[in-house]
């Protein structure tokens, strides 16, 4: 491996490491809830390894508890992950030149945190090569994904020993806010975020995360529209 991708990989691991503070509680919580729902440890581990997406794992658990039909469980939990298709599209210009196998590996570990950290990095350091960007992404994932598996299993064993006053439930929204807040650096970004919040709240009643998909689409258009309008004036 050439030196620069290696350096990028290690940098990615360093930048991903702080997320252990979030992955830890979130993974624990999944393990606890799944155990309560009657899953065994092997099933909990398999779910976390195959899916690596807290929000959709929780959605599936919840629907199975409500005894929804299996196909509805899978499709709804997949709908929660549809946003990852947008991430995939926005990563393609950065990682497109990388070999197919590496892109498949990136796709496997493409989650909100790896995506958020990597996109912030790519914005700061646009001169990185595709190989370095890929290595960086996989570095972030190396710091985040294996602990996700481990913490789910620990949660399955630890169960009721975690006190409620820790309010771990709210570590999840706080993480998402921390991921996008640094990106609010221009008027178009602010406009996109504003539209996203307002439309998502208005359409929160729609099933299958449809509200979020509509909100995200309108928000992208708002961001691009404001950018074009500002370009015309200057």
């Amino acid at each position, binding site marked *: 491996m050439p030196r620069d991708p290696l350096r990028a990989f290690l940098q990615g691991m360093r930048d991903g490491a*702080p997320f252990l503070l979030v992955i830890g509680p979130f993974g624990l919580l999944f393990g606890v809830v799944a155990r309560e729902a009657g899953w065994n440890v092997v*099933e909990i581990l*398999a*779910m976390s390894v*195959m*899916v690596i997406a807290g929000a959709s*794992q929780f959605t599936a658990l919840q629907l*199975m508890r409500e005894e929804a039909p*299996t196909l509805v469980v*899978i499709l709804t939990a*997949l709908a929660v*992950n549809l*946003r*990852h*298709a*947008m*991430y*995939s*599209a*926005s*990563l*393609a*210009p950065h*990682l*497109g*030149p990388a070999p*197919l196998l590496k*892109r498949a590996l990136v*796709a*496997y570990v493409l989650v*909100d945190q790896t*995506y958020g950290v990597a*996109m*912030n990095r790519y914005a700061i350091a646009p001169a990185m090569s595709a190989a370095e960007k890929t290595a960086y992404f996989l570095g972030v994932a190396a710091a985040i994904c294996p602990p996700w598996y481990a913490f789910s299993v620990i949660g399955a064993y630890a169960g009721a020993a975690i006190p409620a006053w820790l*309010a771990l*439930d*709210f570590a*999840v*929204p*706080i993480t*998402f*806010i921390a*991921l*996008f*807040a*640094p*990106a*609010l650096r221009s008027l178009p970004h602010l406009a996109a975020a504003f539209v*996203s*919040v307002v439309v*998502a*709240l208005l359409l929160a009643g729609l099933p299958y995360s449809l509200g979020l998909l509509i909100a*995200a*689409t309108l*928000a*992208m258009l*708002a*961001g*691009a529209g404001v950018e*074009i309008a500002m370009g015309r004036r200057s």
Partner: protein
Amino acid sequence: MSEIWIVILGLGAGTFLIRFSFLGLIGDRALPGWALRLLRYVPVAVMPGLVAPLVVWPAATGGETDPARMIASAVALAVGAATRSLLGAIFGGMAALYLALWAFG
């Protein structure tokens, strides 16, 4: 095969295909300018909308709007935007949450 395993395998395979979609298809072909312009806003278009209902109607209170969680979110947002520090935003937000829960509790 039990229902749990069908869900695990179906959700796992489907999730991978969603994530691989554009990365797998597009390869080293360049995207058109208008697409790049739209994609620039994906993070700030998806994440705020994802988080807004969780903040306004938190699961822990049974969907009841909770001042402590609103304050914590505002602090995390302000710290993150002002300092561009991710950890600062997380620590600031959780510290504000504990303070506010204690103050209102």
